[in-house]
C-alpha cells in the first residue's frame, strides 16, 4: 500500500519528453478558450483557505496558518507534488517570477527551492580562486546535480527532506539544516535547472525566463556592488570570463527544453496569468475530496485484525457511561476520561514487541522476564507519542504517567467547514522519529480522515507503518475500516467501537465534541 515510485506520472506531466514547446502550447491555448466559470470557482475555493498572510517563515521553520488539504487518496496513497522548474540567465528575474507565481497561486503549501543551495562545497584552493573572482560558479561542475535530483524526487513524492546548507563561501564556518515537508507545489529555480536530463524529467512545468543581456548585466552590477560589496572591476571580470560564456554555452541552449518562455520576466502579466491558471488546473486535477465517501465505503465488512479493543470490563463500561453522559460535569469528565486513557495506554503498550530477558533478583535467583525491544542500553527508549491536536492532546498526561520522559510530537489538523475536508495546519515531530515506535493519539476517530492524514504525515517522515499505533478512546466502525484499508499494518487501539456515524459524521451513540467538553469551549 506504500507509494509506488514507478507508477506513471499523473496527468499534466505530458511535457516530460518534449523538446519543443509545442505540446504545452496546445495545453495553454486550450486553457485560454476554456469557459471563465471554472477559474472563478477555483478562486473561491482557494480564497477560503485564508488571506495572503497565511505563511510565516523564519530561518529554521515555516508555519502555515492555512491548512493543507489531503495530498493522498482514500487508499492513503500519495498524490505527487507539482514541480515547476524555473530557468534563466543570471539576474534574469527568476526569483521575482517565482514569488509572483507563489502569491498569485494563493496556495499555502508551496516550497521554493533554489539551485544556489546545491553548490558543491569548495576546498581551500577553490576558495582562494573564488576570492580573486577566478572560480567558475557558472559551470555545471560547480553544482551537485545528484543531490538536486534526489531532493526534488523526494519532495515530489511528498517525503520529508532534511538538507544541509553549507555556508555559501565558507563551508566550514557554519552550516544549518533546512527542513522541507508538505509541498503541493515545488518551485525549483536556478541558472542551470534545465542542464540535466534527470532533473528535467522530475519537472511538471518548465519555465524559461528570458531577459535582455544588457539588463541582466546592469542588474548584476548593481546587486554585486551594492549588496555584496564587490568592486566593479571584479564583477566585470567574472562576468566576461564565466557568466557570459556560461550563458551562451549552457543556459541559452537549454531554452529548447522549456514549456514556456517568458520574455521580460515578472512584468509579463499575460504569461504570469497563463502559468498560474495552468498550475491551478493541474492542482484541481490532483486534488481530493473524499471525506464524505469514507463512511459508506466499507459497510458490513468484518473488523480488521489490526484493531485491538480493550476488554470491556465493568470499569471500562462504567467510565464510558460517565464520559458519554451529557449531564456529566466537566471535572468528572476530565477525571474519568483520563482514567480511561490510562487503561487504553497500558493496553497499547502491551502490543509493542518484547523480547525475553533474564535478570538477577535480590533473592539470589534469576528471573525470566520480558523487555521492550525499543529500550536502549543507555536507558533511552525508542518510543514517542504524537497527538492530533486538539483532542488528542488530552491523552498526553496519561501517556506521560506511564512512559517516563517520553518525547511528544504534535500535529494540528482541522476540518475545513466549507469543504468538510481535514486540513493540516501545523506539525512538530521529535527528531529521528523514523527510528521510533510511534503512539499516535486522537480522542475519537469518526470518519478516520484526520487520523489518515496524521498517519500519512508519519509515513512521509519515514516511520514504518508497522511501528505506528493509533490510540483513540472511541472509534466508529467506518473510521476503523477506512484507516485499516489505507494503512493495513498500522495498529488501531481503542476502548470502544461504535457502530455508526450520523449525517454530520458524528459518532453515535458517541460522546459529543470531546475537545469542547474537555477544554470547556463548547456552547
Amino acid at each position: 500500500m506504500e507509494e509506488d515510485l514507478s507508477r506513471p506520472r499523473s496527468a499534466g506531466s505530458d511535457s516530460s519528453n518534449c523538446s519543443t514547446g509545442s505540446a504545452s502550447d496546445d495545453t495553454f491555448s486550450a486553457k485560454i478558450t476554456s469557459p471563465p466559470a471554472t477559474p472563478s470557482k477555483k478562486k473561491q475555493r482557494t480564497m477560503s483557505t485564508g488571506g495572503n498572510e497565511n505563511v510565516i517563515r523564519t530561518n529554521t521553520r515555516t508555519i502555515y496558518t492555512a491548512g493543507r488539504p489531503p495530498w493522498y487518496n482514500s487508499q492513503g496513497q500519495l498524490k505527487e507534488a507539482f514541480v515547476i522548474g524555473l530557468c534563466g540567465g543570471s539576474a534574469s528575474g527568476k526569483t521575482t517570477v517565482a514569488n509572483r507565481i507563489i502569491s498569485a497561486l494563493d496556495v499555502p503549501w508551496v516550497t521554493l527551492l533554489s539551485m544556489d543551495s546545491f553548490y558543491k562545497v569548495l576546498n581551500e584552493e577553490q576558495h582562494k580562486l573564488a576570492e580573486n573572482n577566478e572560480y567558475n560558479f557558472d559551470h555545471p561542475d560547480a553544482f551537485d546535480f545528484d543531490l538536486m535530483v534526489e531532493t526534488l524526487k523526494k519532495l515530489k513524492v511528498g517525503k520529508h527532506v532534511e538538507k544541509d546548507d553549507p555556508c555559501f563561501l565558507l563551508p566550514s564556518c557554519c552550516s544549518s539544516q533546512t527542513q522541507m515537508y508538505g509541498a503541493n507545489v515545488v518551485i525549483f529555480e536556478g541558472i542551470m535547472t534545465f542542464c540535466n536530463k534527470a532533473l528535467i524529467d522530475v519537472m511538471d512545468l518548465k519555465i524559461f525566463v528570458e531577459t535582455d543581456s544588457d539588463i541582466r548585466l546592469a542588474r548584476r552590477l548593481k546587486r554585486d556592488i551594492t549588496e555584496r560589496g564587490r568592486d566593479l572591476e571584479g564583477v566585470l571580470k567574472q562576468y566576461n570570463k564565466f557568466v557570459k560564456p556560461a550563458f551562451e554555452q549552457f543556459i541559452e541552449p537549454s531554452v529548447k527544453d522549456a514549456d514556456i518562455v517568458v520574455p521580460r520576466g515578472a512584468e509579463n502579466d499575460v504569461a504570469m496569468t497563463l502559468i498560474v491558471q495552468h498550475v491551478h488546473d493541474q492542482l484541481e486535477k490532483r486534488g481530493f475530496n473524499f471525506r464524505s465517501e469514507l463512511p459508506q465505503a466499507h459497510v458490513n465488512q468484518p473488523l480488521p485484525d489490526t484493531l485491538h479493543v480493550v476488554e470491556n470490563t465493568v470499569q471500562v463500561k462504567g467510565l464510558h457511561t460517565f464520559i458519554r453522559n451529557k449531564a456529566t460535569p466537566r471535572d468528572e469528565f476530565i477525571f474519568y476520561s483520563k482514567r480511561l486513557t490510562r487503561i487504553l495506554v497500558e493496553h497499547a503498550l502491551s502490543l509493542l514487541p518484547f523480547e525475553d530477558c533474564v535478570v538477577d533478583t535480590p533473592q539470589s535467583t534469576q528471573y525470566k522476564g520480558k523487555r521492550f525491544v525499543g529500550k536502549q542500553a543507555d536507558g533511552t527508549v525508542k518510543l514517542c507519542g504524537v497527538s492530533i491536536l486538539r483532542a488528542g492532546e488530552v491523552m498526553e498526561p496519561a501517556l506521560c504517567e506511564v512512559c517516563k520522559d517520553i518525547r511528544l510530537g504534535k500535529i494540528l489538523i482541522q476540518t475545513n467547514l466549507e469543504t468538510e475536508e481535514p486540513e493540516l495546519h501545523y506539525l512538530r515531530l521529535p527528531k529521528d522519529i523514523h527510528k521510533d515506535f510511534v503512539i499516535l493519539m486522537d480522542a475519537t476517530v469518526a470518519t478516520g480522515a484526520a487520523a489518515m492524514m496524521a498517519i500519512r504525515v508519519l509515513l512521509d517522515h519515514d516511520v514504518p507503518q508497522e511501528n505506528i499505533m493509533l490510540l483513540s478512546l472511541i472509534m466508529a466502525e467506518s473510521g476503523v475500516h477506512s484507516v485499516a484499508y489505507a494503512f493495513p499494518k498500522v495498529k488501531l487501539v481503542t476502548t470502544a467501537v461504535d457502530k455508526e456515524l450520523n449525517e454530520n459524521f458524528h459518532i453515535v451513540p458517541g460522546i459529543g465534541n470531546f475537545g469542547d467538553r474537555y477544554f470547556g469551549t463548547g456552547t
Partner: protein
Amino acid sequence: MKTKETGSGDCRPRPTSDQTVNHGCGNQLKVLKPNNQIRELQTVIRDCKTSRGDFVFCADRLIRLVVEEGLNQLPYKERSVTTPTGYTYHGVDFVQGNCGVSIMRSGEAMEHGLRDCCRSIRIGKILIKTNEDTGEARVYYAKFPPDIGRRKVLLMYPILNSGNTVIQAVKVLKEHVPERNVILLTLFCTPNGVRTVINHFPEITVLTSEVDPITPIHFGQKYFGTD
C-alpha cells in the same frame, strides 16, 4: 430527540483468573491476564539492578493495574444515559459503599493507586509486625471507617509470602466485615501463601499479578527507600 439504541455490550461474566494456574484455589484466586507489558513491569521490579526511581515508577504502574482489576470485582448496576449527540448509551453505574484497607507498612504503597481511581474513597489501616524470631505476626493498630460492615473492602498488601500477615489482618477485619466482602489486592504471591489464606478464609477473593514461589520480598524496603 433520537433514541436509537446502540453501543451496548455485555460486560458481566468474564473469567479474570487464568484457570490453568489457580493453584487449587478455584475462583477465589484471580490473576491478572498476563501480557508482555505486565511481564516487563514485573521484570523491572524483580531486577536487583533497577534504580529506586524506576522501581517506584514501575511498582506504581503495576499497582494501578491491580487496583483497576480489583475495582472490576465490585458491584455495579445497569444504567442508561443520553449522550451529547442525543442517543442512548447503555452503560453501568458503580455502586457506592466500598472502602480500602491497607496493611502497614508496604500496603500503604498501594493507597495512592486506589486514590487515583476513586478520589474520595475511605481508607482504613492495620499495622502488623512480625516477630523475626518466631515468625509470628501480631496486630498493633487498626482503624476502619465506622460503617465498614456495610462496605466491600479492598485489602491492600503487595507481597503475599507465607500468608501469616494477611491472615492476621483478615482476622481483625472479620470482627467487622463478612468474609465474602473482602477482596485482597496483592502484586506477587507464592502458591503456598495464597493456598494458606484461602484455606483459612474460603470466601475471600485474592487478586494478584503473578503467582511464583519466589516473591520480591524487598518490595517495601525498596519502595520506601529504607534498605
